[in-house]
């Protein structure tokens, strides 16, 4: 990676991710739940099921995984607004259901969840974003993976995710919201680390093949690090 001239906001190196903190069983009534803090970004997930799902989606030989994403109204950081910005503000009736985020998380998890193990039923992963300071999709995927593992839903592997943003020549791993806003391209990767298989990749902006490969490699390294943290957290708190 090219060496950077200006340090990042929180004095991280370009290839360093933020600290990941995982807490499990935050919702005791759920089959499995996890709360994740990636720097300042906070997300939690509760998995319910397998339970009866919507009739029209019931498959005979496989079940469905449904993801519901809820973004707190104060998560995006529009703390205080003056008159000029009010028109752009998300005021009363702001949509808290975030379908784009739900779709991203679901696509990342679908490669791993073994839906044949719960035919005709549905597993609901409900994800909540409390603080969106960059990397919400990453935090949600990590929380959902940990919650699914806790719930005992059969999966091929733990799914971990990581993002990388490009600003000119510079590639920053696990960017904060401010860094994303000033970037000109971003790559999102969700991978199954033990199998070294990509579950989902998404690129935003113009990328050539070389840059894409470098970015994906960087993201894969980030994913491996997060995967290690998740595994350690799951191992340290065995379910009795």
């Amino acid at each position, binding site marked *: 990676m090219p060496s950077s001239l200006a340090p990042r906001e929180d004095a991280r190196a370009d290839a360093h991710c933020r600290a990941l903190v995982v807490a499990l069983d935050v919702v005791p*009534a759920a089959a499995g739940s996890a709360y994740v803090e990636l720097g300042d970004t906070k997300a939690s997930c*509760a998995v319910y099921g397998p339970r009866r799902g919507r009739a029209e989606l019931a498959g005979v030989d496989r079940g469905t995984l449904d993801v519901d994403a809820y973004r707190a*109204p*104060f998560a995006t950081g529009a*703390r*205080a607004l003056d008159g000029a910005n009010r028109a752009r503000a998300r005021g009363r009736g702001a949509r808290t259901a975030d379908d784009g985020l739900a779709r991203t998380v679901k696509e990342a998890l679908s490669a791993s969840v073994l839906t044949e193990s719960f035919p005709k039923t549905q597993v609901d992963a409900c994800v*909540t974003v409390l603080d969106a300071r960059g990397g919400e999709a990453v935090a949600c995927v990590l929380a959902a993976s940990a919650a699914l593992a806790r719930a005992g839903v059969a999966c091929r592997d733990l799914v971990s995710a990581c993002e990388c943003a490009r600003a000119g020549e510079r590639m920053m791993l696990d960017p904060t919201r401010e860094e994303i806003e000033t970037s000109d391209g971003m790559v999102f990767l969700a991978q199954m680390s033990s199998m070294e298989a990509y579950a989902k990749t998404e690129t935003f902006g113009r990328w050539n093949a070389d840059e894409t490969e470098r970015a994906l490699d960087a993201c894969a390294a980030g994913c491996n690090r997060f995967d290690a943290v998740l595994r350690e957290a799951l191992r340290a708190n065995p379910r009795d």
Partner: protein
Amino acid sequence: MESAAYARLYPREACEKTLASGARGDGRPLGRARARTCATGVASGALGSALAKHGATTACAGVTATIATPDATRPEEGFLEIAVDHAPQASEDARDGRTRGRREAAAAACASAVANAAVLGKDLKQLCVERGTFAWRVRVDVIVLCDDGGAADCAVTAVMAALRDCVLPEVAVTRGKVALEGDGTAMNGDGVRKGTRLDVQTMPVCLTTALYREHLLVDPTREEEALSECEVSVVLTEDGLLRGVFKPGGEVEATEDTLMKCIAAAKLHYAASAKVVLEATEDEE
């Protein structure tokens, strides 16, 4: 049969067995509320935020504010809005369109409590920026992250802590235009946030009691709420005045005797609950 399986298959019988021994499922006596904890500054995207936990029930409140035009009939007052919502992860049945009744009741109880308690003063004059033209519209959003019974109580705790934690940024009005100095994150030299704190004048505390057969269960858990015939939520402030008594429907009426007992339970638990919020917010001063 395992006790957990028995409780799941025969909830009424399991509940009655435990009540017969004078305690509840989690070992509490009938009249004791769960321990409450509270932490502030949890959401960096809000002017003030708090996370409250009553046992396993968790609620997170965040305060945001916009500059608005005051009402023509009240030119010196601002606005305070409280919205309570349950995240989909909060409970098994938190799917859209199903059993919203209880959740909306909890939301209404919380919002009324804070409104009736006049937490920012009888009128909202402290939110006025310039008489007749600019005033703050303060909005508190509460999300219930885990509903293990008593969501309204937890929401009230979270709202009060978030309001006490809130710092409104400085406002400068020049030539009819308003400009905010910073967005609420600027700090002074000694690490204190710049801006004006809200003058929170009262401390309302809410306590829910469930009625099951002839037993009164203070601060019910989710299983107890599911079995109960009616619930009564009581909101008190430090002067001992009632700010709200809510009984959202239910199968059974609450007699005067029952209501008196619920109010007495709320009075008994007031000091401990208020202390939790005060301690969580006192080191900001």
